[in-house]
């Protein structure tokens, strides 16, 4: 049932890692095992999208840095944290850092499968989202810093006149920038522009539009 799915196992415990990988392969998964989060992060950009099973062992801290670093590179990969007797605090921290779940080691395969079912269910949407982010970032590169200034203010809901006043430029200049932005981004409406700005990480202006 997990045909053509890839799972990335991270665990410093070599014998558990091997047994867990074997058990997952029995479920039809392809597996790649890593002995530490750093190894996975190093390769992350080249790997096909899959689910990460990240074991955090005693003495390895909270694992939050690994989760964040991994998701910063591959926001499309669902991360499931695994640890021995996770406390409520540890689990909540992992979820808040972006993990989809936190499972106890050892974990019955039925439960691992439940967690993986969900992870693989959301994977296609995450991959698509990651692609949109990539495309938005590529488009953003075409904008000049001034055009970004104007875009931020458009997204924040400011009128051309307000933007002109705020940037101390003429209204006609704002209109020109606005036209160029639309053309470069190949968009013709404000909704698309706002969606682009969100994906590209261009936040609205902090200053109040009024």
């Amino acid at each position: 049932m997990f045909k053509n799915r890839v799972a990335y196992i991270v665990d410093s415990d070599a014998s558990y890692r091997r047994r867990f990988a074997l058990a997952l392969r029995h479920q039809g998964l392809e597996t790649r095992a890593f002995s530490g989060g750093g190894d996975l992060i190093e390769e992350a950009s080249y790997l096909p999208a899959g689910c990460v099973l990240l074991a955090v062992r005693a003495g390895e801290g909270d694992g939050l840095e690994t989760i964040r670093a991994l998701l910063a590179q591959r926001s499309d990969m669902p991360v499931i944290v695994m640890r021995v007797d996770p406390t409520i605090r540890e689990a909540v921290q992992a979820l808040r850092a972006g993990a989809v779940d936190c499972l106890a080691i050892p974990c019955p395969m039925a439960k691992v499968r439940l967690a993986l079912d969900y992870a693989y269910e959301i994977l296609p949407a995450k991959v698509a989202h990651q692609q949109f982010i990539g495309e938005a970032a590529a488009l953003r590169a075409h904008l000049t810093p001034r055009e970004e200034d104007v875009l931020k203010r458009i997204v924040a809901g400011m009128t051309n006149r307000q933007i002109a006043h705020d940037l101390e430029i003429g209204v006609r200049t704002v209109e020109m920038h606005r036209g160029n932005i639309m053309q470069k981004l190949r968009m013709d409406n404000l909704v698309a522009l706002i969606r682009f700005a969100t994906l590209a990480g261009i936040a609205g202006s902090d200053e109040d539009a009024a």
Partner: protein
Amino acid sequence: MKMLHEERIVHPMTQLPLQGTGLAGWLYASRCALPSAWAQRAVDDIVAKSVPRNAALDVTGALLFTGARFVQFLEGPAESIVAIRQNILADRRHHDIVTFLSGGRAERVFSNWSLAYAGPSLFVADKVENLFHIGIRHTAEIIDLLEQFVIISEANKP
């Protein structure tokens, strides 16, 4: 007012009487009556309505949604808790409401009301199921779970 739901009370009313403006608390769990495709929108709607209402009633606490169950802890003036409780019991979006904790509280746990968590985590779902199996001994654990979500999200705010 006619109650639409049978309310099951697992925990006996606690020590302090529930009346007037004294501080009261209510911890309950219920089952989501909506198909999962609609559930997320229902949660958004509940949160949008609850934030101003709870603030107006001086009620604090947290809501948790596992996809199948709601768990909510509310605390505030006893009359506010009674009013909200009647509202919730009449709300068709959930059923099988089970009360785990109800009555006077010495002090508040939460400083405002928020959505603690809405998601698919099996860890969270298991903690909620424990409430049903082991009942009242797990009320402290659930309130701790809600509290940790709120504390950590506050700490992550820029």
